[in-house]
């Protein structure tokens, strides 16, 4: 059975290690914060200028001056700090942020990613995504394996305008966990009950299957 968005977030949370500074994109990535193990130390950075984000505020305690990159009201935890956009992207570009988790509309087998524009349709802009993908050493993409029409989003080549080139390292989709290797998408784990054949059918790009592929534990 394919994973829910919550389960994708839950699986990605396992990739978050002790001592990591993490930038979470909008959408599924935001949910990852809910599933990070409580016995490790992790700090969340938001590119609009805060490190050490906490949960949403209690009702009535919202502060218009304290938001995340999704423009949601947030709180901060002890040890948090605020800073300007230049220093914020300095953290990202300078590779001080250990892990970036973001969504994608398409990923190519060479690690190219497209997630900011559908020509003639969606023109919201890239926000901080191009900075994040061009700088981060460690990028995990959270995405659905196929679009609503059932078409694969893991492609030989991206068809949409790119956000970044050869940058995605890992993908957690509703069907599988995959590593982006020089040879293509290396299948690491299957969603519970999903067969290798189903994953193969949903993957347009080159899928590499080495031996038995374990089911993921979420």
């Amino acid at each position, binding site marked *: 059975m394919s994973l829910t968005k919550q389960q994708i977030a839950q699986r990605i949370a396992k990739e978050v290690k002790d001592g990591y500074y993490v930038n979470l994109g909008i959408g599924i990535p935001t949910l990852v914060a809910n599933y990070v193990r409580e016995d490790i130390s992790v700090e969340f950075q938001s590119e609009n200028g805060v490190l050490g984000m906490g949960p949403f505020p*209690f009702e009535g305690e919202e502060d218009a001056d304290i938001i995340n990159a999704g423009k949601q009201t947030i709180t901060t935890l002890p040890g948090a700090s605020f*800073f300007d956009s230049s220093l914020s992207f300095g953290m990202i570009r300078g590779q001080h942020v250990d892990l970036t988790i973001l969504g994608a509309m398409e990923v190519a087998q060479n690690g190219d990613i497209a997630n900011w524009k559908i020509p003639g349709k969606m*023109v919201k*802009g890239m926000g901080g995504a191009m900075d994040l993908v061009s700088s981060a050493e460690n990028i995990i993409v959270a995405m659905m394996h196929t679009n609503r029409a059932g078409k694969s989003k893991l492609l030989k080549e991206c068809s949409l305008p*790119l956000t970044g080139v050869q940058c995605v390292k890992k993908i957690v989709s509703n069907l599988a966990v995959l590593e982006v290797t020089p040879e293509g998408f290396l299948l690491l784990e299957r969603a519970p009950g999903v067969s290798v054949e189903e994953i193969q059918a949903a993957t347009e790009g080159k899928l590499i299957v080495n031996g038995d592929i374990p089911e993921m534990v979420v």
Partner: protein
Amino acid sequence: MISKKVDSVSKALEGVKDNMTFMLGGFGLCGIPENSIAELVKRNVKRLTCISNNAGVDDFGLGLLLQKHQIKKMVSSYVGENDEFERQMLSGELEVELIPQGTLAERCRAAQVGLPAVYTPAGFGTEVAEGKETREFDGKMYVLEHAFKADFAFVKAWKGDEAGNLIFKGTARNFNPIMCGAAKVTVVEVEELLPAGELDPNQIHIPGIFVQRIFQGEKFEKRIEQRTVRNKK
């Protein structure tokens, strides 16, 4: 002490004209120069180029200038959440240059500190880099991006003093500090304007040398775009 204090938003905006290029601080509706925007609407200056991370919402922030068709071109990183913006862009009334957020930030800072251009990896291999110089350093590719040139920077700070020194609050800081001194004239609105000497010199985020005019904003609505809360236990 060199005083930067002006008594009103109207004096603060003296000299704004049609066809000018403005920088405006803020991220979403957080930390935007509300009072200066209101005055720009009132003055009805036209054909503006606005450099700002976002374009406001339909009825607040830069959306107010868009409603009155005062903006000719937007330079932003993200412009969602604004139907009028989308309509004007798709109809070709509005010119839009979308650039990565970190590039936007560094092009502001470059203008502030007198650097002509910066090399950033953001956008390499994408349409953002089309027509721009690219270059390899240590095996990684970068795009050359130039410092912005602007006539006015409109900035919102939390506390300020008459010398123009500024302190920002929370994530309302964002692009505001790096736009100070990045335009020919920097106009700052503050929630609290204090006499010089009231702010600890050690805690000042932006020294007054980067500011030409400072005024106490009459009203700050500080609208929240996404009110997210959790329940009290």
